[in-house]
């Protein structure tokens, strides 16, 4: 087990480098002059050169990359934004909880929706419920989150005044003049959660339904019935216990991915999360911030993947960590 962990961590480090190198290089292939932007309008050649030196852009790219990595590893410092000179660490520390609230809350809701519908559809294939669920799946997967978000915002927020349309209410420390506290936090997140969860709920309903149908046909389910077990035990202890195994791991990976930034939902509802932050930073050619989000997201995804692999070994006795 320890050997497995060490090996995974080494791979993780390699992966981290691979991702950051590629991203770093990509930005330098894009034609642009951040020094000019940084120096501001009306700057002369001298100022621009000084800006370039300040930003470290006059050094060769591998020196820049090396400094970048050194700064992260030694000082845990992601640098400063080229746009507003704010510490990237702070930017991310502010944005991450917003995305986390959206994603984790959304995940809880999408599972609460997907599991019962998926299981019931599987138990009554081709029934009205099943056909309704599959239609929902089709719509959920096809409709774009931005469209869904705008429709929801219009109907629930604007037309019927049921929920607020935009904005994020901080759970702990709202800025002065802004709504805050747990209730407002949840209230402001209702529409974003609903929008975010639809796509995933649809995907998971389909996956759970397929898994349950497949598991119902397994021989060991027939054995359980032959032992005289009531359907409730057959379902819980034999069918679901096996059918949900792949779902658990997919869940871990999807959450990990989404934590990198649920861009569409955050944009529609103006939530100051990682997604919106990175889009804005891209528009401003604010490399440190974008790299900061990439680094953060990479670490999160790697960690979640590792957790998911370990979890799978725990819940499925057939898996032996090689």
């Amino acid at each position, binding site marked *: 087990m320890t050997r497995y962990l060490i090996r995974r961590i080494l791979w993780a480090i390699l992966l981290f480098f691979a991702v950051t190198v590629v991203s770093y290089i990509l930005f330098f292939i894009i034609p642009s002059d951040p020094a000019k932007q940084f120096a501001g309008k009306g700057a002369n050649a001298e100022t621009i050169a000084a800006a370039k030196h300040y930003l470290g852009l006059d050094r060769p790219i591998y020196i820049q990359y090396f400094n970048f990595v050194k700064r992260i590893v030694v000082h845990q410092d992601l640098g400063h934004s080229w746009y507003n000179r704010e510490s990237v660490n702070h930017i991310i520390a502010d944005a991450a909880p917003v995305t986390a609230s959206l994603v984790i809350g959304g995940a809880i809701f999408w599972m609460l929706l997907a599991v019962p519908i998926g299981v019931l559809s599987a138990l009554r294939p081709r029934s009205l419920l099943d056909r309704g669920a599959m239609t929902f799946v089709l719509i959920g997967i096809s409709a774009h989150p931005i469209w869904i978000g705008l429709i929801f915002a219009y109907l629930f927020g604007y037309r019927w005044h049921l929920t607020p349309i935009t904005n994020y209410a901080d759970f702990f420390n709202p800025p002065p003049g802004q709504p805050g506290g747990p209730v407002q936090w949840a209230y402001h997140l209702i529409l974003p959660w609903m929008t975010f969860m639809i796509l995933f709920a649809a995907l998971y309903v389909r996956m759970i339904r397929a898994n349950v149908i497949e598991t119902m046909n397994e021989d060991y389910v*027939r*054995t359980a*019935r*032959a032992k*005289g077990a009531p359907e409730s035990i057959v379902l819980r202890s034999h069918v679901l216990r096996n059918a949900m195994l792949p779902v658990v791991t997919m869940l871990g990976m999807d959450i990990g991915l989404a934590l990198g930034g649920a861009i569409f939902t955050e944009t529609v509802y103006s939530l100051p999360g990682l997604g919106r932050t990175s889009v804005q930073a891209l528009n401003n050619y604010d490399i440190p911030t974008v790299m900061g989000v990439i680094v953060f997201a990479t670490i999160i995804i790697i960690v979640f993947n590792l957790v998911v692999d370990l979890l799978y070994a725990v819940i499925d*006795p057939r898996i032996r960590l090689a």
Partner: protein
Amino acid sequence: MALLEVNELKTYFRTDDGIVKAVDGVTFSVEKGKTLGIVGESGSGKSVTCLTIMGLNNRKVAISSGQALWKGNDLIQMSPKELRDIRGNEIAMIFQDPMTSLNPVHKVGQQLTEAILLHQDITKSAARARSLELLKAVGIPRAETRIDDYPHQFSGGMRQRVMIAMALVNNPDLLIADEPTTALDVTTQAQILDLMKRLQDEFGSAIIMITHDLGVVAEVADDVVVMYAARVQEEGEVRNLFQRPNHPYTWGLLGSLPRLHHEVDRLTQIHGQPPSLLFPPQGCRFHPRCSFVMPICSQTEPGLDPVTGAQGVHRVRCHLDQDTRDRESAKAVEGTLAEVS
């Protein structure tokens, strides 16, 4: 009164292509402590017959009629709850593929204990003790440690032993074994059959052994039923069937077995294919493949009539006259072990 009496049992399946008549009027009985062998090829209806008795068919697509009298009570008419009380308790069933018949995420001991606790009101530790006892009885070495292992840690033969243990854990009066040795190699097969016979002596349960292998039938059965195309074609005591088989299909089955003392280039086959159960043949269901077919065979189905001059039970469904049948019977038996014994 027999332990299990099956009368004109029918099971039809509703499918997109029509109604599949998987079991179309099957009658047999099983006596206490005896073994009934049900022989037939794939698709003959032997498995579905037993699944119907156990009530394990998909209720949405299967329609059953007829009677399956278990100690006088009709299983076909029972409610799901009453059936559940009998399943795994008075009647137990083991299946063909041991590799997939056990839940892979539960320990073996857990699965055995589940079988016990579903029907007996005892403590968990008492159930575990009983599970251990059964694992030892079926010959699992180091059962005390193995009881906490997962199914994937056992070989195929061991898993089948675990299945047998699981079936016997509540001392059933009837054990239905659906091709228990088909997925195992020959040596393991012999061990498992030996084990089953020994356990039958010890526990006193009756056994229904479903198989396509006549060797298995000869080894374990007291009575035999030969099924073809969802109907019984021949039935009787095992001695009668092997020494004096009376149905062309049975001759074909015996003929296809390799002989110990005769050398041949090709094994004889029964030409043709098993018939569709959506539209079974008119008249005798075997007539399209029968070498002795007569005009009457495609018109009327013969009844299951007693064989003249038989000692004990022996019935056959065939239009051929007894003399021809006796002649062909002798030919079919020639060179088999029945001749030797």
